[in-house]
């Protein structure tokens, strides 16, 4: 009997395991070496305290929000609320569990924030778009209220604030500017590495499918509701750790007011200006956001010389800020990261044009 055998083509023996070749560019490694080894030597206390630490923490917060908004497409304006959860949870863990190492407390704070984020992600199963955004506002206000109203969270301090508990690791004191800088840098570097791999993995791809169109994603078999909740949880984990670092590595003393709605907007602006759906964009956006006020106030001082009061400069700052946001949205919706990339493409063939 003549059997009809349908032969499948033989699989390639050398099928690539990676679809996109993954290697760390030289520039990035150089930057990492510089940040780890040179900056602690070169940087003055002012630079470390007032510029580099907030920049790194804001980048991490932007990263957390970007996972949710830029990758999974769920707009959130409650980022600071989850940062507050992380800060207060880390504080509580360090305070109430004696001998708990700092990294464990940080991760614990992040996990508690993730759990809270997961709960606030439940409505995302039924609600979309602006309606969902308002539920994240609910999270923001509710969490702010919780951390103001219940003294247990701030150990019944009359001021309602929490301050940096013991910042030490394996007996090394980290409370100096360099120590806090390195703590922040290591945390941010590790978490960024995780995020890079996360968005390349199945779950990251699911998120992007949901972002592009969740109905279509459901049709091709992605469990949309589960993955949306996971996005909320992972994003809150990042935001929680960023919140703990913001409170203890940067501010030193924090209260619920340090995580108000303006902080949420600030983080949202970081990802808009830096670039939605981009890891590097968070760092660029955070650099922009944290340097702009400094530059503007210097420029204000230099141009107008103390004749204009601080309030007016602040108003001016606000207006420049708003204008820049609109300008970015009009000119480059993909943010600074895209702007830099296209600049690089142009420079590569300079002086010719495409």
């Amino acid at each position: 009997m003549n059997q009809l055998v349908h032969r499948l083509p033989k699989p390639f023996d050398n099928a690539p395991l990676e679809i996109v070749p993954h290697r760390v560019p030289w520039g990035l490694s150089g930057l990492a070496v510089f940040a780890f080894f040179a900056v602690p030597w070169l940087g003055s206390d002012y630079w470390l305290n007032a510029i580099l630490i907030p920049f790194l923490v804001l980048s991490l917060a932007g990263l957390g929000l970007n996972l949710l908004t830029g990758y999974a497409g769920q707009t959130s304006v409650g980022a600071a609320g989850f940062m507050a959860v992380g800060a207060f949870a880390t504080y509580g863990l360090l305070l109430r569990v004696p001998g708990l190492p700092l990294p464990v407390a940080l991760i614990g704070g992040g996990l508690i924030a993730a759990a809270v984020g997961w709960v606030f992600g439940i409505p995302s199963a039924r609600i979309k778009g602006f309606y969902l955004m308002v539920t994240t506002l609910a999270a923001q206000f509710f969490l702010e209220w919780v951390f103001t109203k219940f003294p247990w969270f701030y150990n019944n301090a009359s001021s309602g604030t929490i301050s940096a508990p013991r910042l030490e690791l394996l007996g090394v004191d980290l409370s100096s500017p360099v120590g806090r800088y390195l703590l922040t840098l290591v945390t941010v570097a590790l978490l960024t590495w995780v995020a890079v791999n996360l968005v390349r993995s199945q779950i990251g791809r699911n998120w992007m499918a949901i972002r592009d169109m969740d109905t279509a994603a459901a049709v091709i078999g992605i469990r949309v509701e589960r993955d949306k909740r996971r996005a909320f949880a992972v994003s809150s984990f990042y935001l929680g750790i960023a919140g703990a670092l913001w409170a203890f590595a940067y501010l030193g003393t924090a209260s619920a007011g340090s995580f108000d709605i303006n902080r949420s907007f600030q983080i949202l602006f970081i990802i808009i200006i830096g670039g939605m759906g981009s890891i590097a964009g968070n760092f660029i956006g955070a650099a922009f956001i944290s340097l702009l006020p400094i530059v503007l106030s210097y420029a204000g001082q230099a141009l107008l010389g103390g004749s204009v009061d601080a309030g007016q400069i602040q108003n001016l700052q606000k207006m420049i800020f708003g204008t820049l946001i609109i300008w970015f949205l009009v000119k480059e919706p993909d943010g600074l990261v895209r702007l830099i990339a296209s600049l690089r493409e142009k420079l590569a063939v300079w002086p010719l044009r495409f």
Partner: protein
Amino acid sequence: MIFFLETLIGGLLAGTMYSLVAIGFVLIFKASGVFNFAQGAMLLFSALTFVSLQEHGIPFLQSLLLTVVVIVIGAVAIERAVLRPLMNRSQITLFMATLGLSFILEGLAQGLMGAEVRALDLGIEDTPLMLGEVMVSQFDLVAASTAAVLVTVLALLFNKTHIGISLRAVADDTRAALSIGINLNRIWQIVWAVAGCAGLVAGLLWGARQGVQFSLSLVVLKALPVLIIGGFTSIGGAIVGGLIVGAAENLAEVYVGPSIGGGITPWFAYFLALVFLHVRPAGLFGERAIERV
């Protein structure tokens, strides 16, 4: 019982103030699909303009007219500089642009007209009024009737005038409206101006109550749950939503608040909105979105 009624009525009347703010949102969202976060800043800006004009000794009506002129100019400028370049972008992009806009307006308002608290006297007495045995704030009554008048005027505008009918056409189907020759940009300018005027009314009433100052722009955050409950696309929904939020907030603060530490008004309305959303994901009167792949 009387205390309960007083709380309820006080809440309902305060709710109409929320509705006034929410109406501005609904107008813009219906016509251009923009979730206008700058509504609060517009409110602050117009109320500040009015107060500053009054302080310069310009009588009530003239200052009102001048403020409206400023609002119209602002609406045209916003349409030109923000909406037109962003046409056909995603709704989220437009929302973020209005966030930027709110920064500009807040900076501009405070930079030009100062940041201190201004008193605003509209000549409404805030003495309590006795209706039977129930005490009602006179000011709230005036606010509620203003809301009623505003809604009536808007309803007439939408149903009886040429402009209103074009507005509804745009809201129904932008593409079809364009194809029969409706000037979309002009419609947007008109809608933003009308929403700005609704914002002015709301801003004056809120300003008379709590002084004209920066916190006026935070009234927006009060109006969001109202929108959620009523639906983003329905003016009637904004009214009903405002009443529900106002009443529920007042009752909850009085009856539930003390047992969980008080001060629950900042988030209670949002909590309520969440409960509503779980039952009706597009609000009470919102349009259910049909998705096609």
